[in-house]
């Protein structure tokens, strides 16, 4: 089941990103589904899965991007890894924490893009920050926080069921 979900994420998110997602763009800026997915998978399942899934999604994204073939691979792998680190060390995470964390990681990933694309392209760095980096980070954070809220609710419910009279909750810790 988990494998199927990961395969769907790897091969399904990029088609959505390239086609229907343009309908929800604000000022031409769309959220980065792969980035949000890598962070959340890392946060909920651990460093390794976040990292490897981030690498896989980033690579597929690179195949359908005009940029170099390693940029998304490296950035998505890194944010998946950092999402996992956050999941391990952040106690009592809330939706607000998730919003701030995803905002930070999206800004970090965007800065790598800006530094890589910058010398050839966006010479006016402040324009790129205002027009792409910040709006995308806000989009990613809003979407990620919404998804975090839904997932956290689901995880809490599952934990409550397992922690009932049988005390099986320890299994998913």
């Amino acid at each position, binding site marked *: 089941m*988990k*494998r199927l979900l*990961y395969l769907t994420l790897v*091969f*399904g998110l*990029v*088609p*959505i*990103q*390239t*086609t*229907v997602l*343009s*309908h929800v763009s604000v000022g*031409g*800026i*769309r959220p*980065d589904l*792969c980035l949000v997915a890598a962070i959340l998978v890392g946060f909920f399942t651990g460093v*390794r*899965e976040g*990292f*490897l899934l981030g*690498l896989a999604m980033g*690579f*597929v*994204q*690179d*195949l*359908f*991007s*005009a*940029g*170099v*073939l*390693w940029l*998304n*691979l*490296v950035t998505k*792998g890194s944010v998946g890894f950092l999402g996992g680190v956050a999941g391990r060390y952040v106690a009592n995470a809330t939706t607000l924490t998730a919003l701030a964390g995803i905002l930070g990681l999206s800004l970090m990933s965007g800065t790598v*893009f*800006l530094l890589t*694309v910058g010398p*050839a*392209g*966006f*010479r*006016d760095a402040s*324009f*790129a920050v205002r*027009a*792409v980096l910040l709006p*995308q980070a806000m989009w990613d954070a809003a979407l990620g926080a919404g998804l975090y809220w839904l997932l956290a609710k689901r995880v809490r419910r599952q934990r409550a069921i397992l922690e009932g009279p049988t005390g099986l909750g320890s299994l998913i810790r």
Partner: protein
Amino acid sequence: MFRSTSGTRRVTLVLVALLLSALLVLPTQSQRLLQHIGVPLAPIVTLPIEALAALDRSLRDMWEGYVALHEVHEENLRLRREIELLQHQNGRLQEAASASQRLTALLEFKGRARSQTVAAQVIGRETTNWYRAVVVNKGDVDGVRVEMGVITPAGVVGRVVKTTRSASMVLLVTDPNNAITGLIQRTRDEGIVEGTAQGLARVKYLPLLSTVRAGDRVVTSGLTGGFPRGLPIGVITSIDKMEGDLFQSGDIVPDADLTRLEEVVIITAPREEADWDAASLQTQPPQQRKP
């Protein structure tokens, strides 16, 4: 899914870290390696992209043909149903007529063009917000290669920057990473056409003594890239001539409407006969822009 011993885990992470370091240290070699790895993966993603693009198109048609017209039909239930039906049919027919018109123009254009070309459909947009590019449904198997020029009957669209077996990425002329050699049609001065961060294009390095002015047309010079001479790029809207500068530059509005691309033509062999009928291209009505 990733259950393993801690030793295996460490080895895996070290190997992945080494791979990532190699990507950064050897960018050219790693590009080739990644390209090879991507060959079997790309078609798996291209199929859902094409399916979603088709679904998206049909949903848009439904929206335009049905929902948008729904507000008009408030007076009478019977008339509303009748009109709705007729309008729905009309919408579909109009869409079919419009597609047929576009494809006819494309076919005529292909016939006039003496270079070898391949018609392609735009199936998606760039996956990140950092490049202005589109995905088209023609790739390696159709003879598409990197650096080939992409056009519509209205003018230059961009150039191919990446190909997979069945799809290609086209970097638009408005992307700051794109550069095409251009020619001012009236004065015959040459310059470099680049995209701007604001999503327009700009012709740079024009001679200081050139009499270029707003309203002048810019066409491809045919000197570099995958374009023959004389293809329309756009119209100059303003000229920057600063005191002390060695060159002048001008802002361009591209002739092709790059926000609503549906079908394009890829020039697969531009250099066979570079004498395109530029005059007949000028007589083509520009691609209609919706408000």
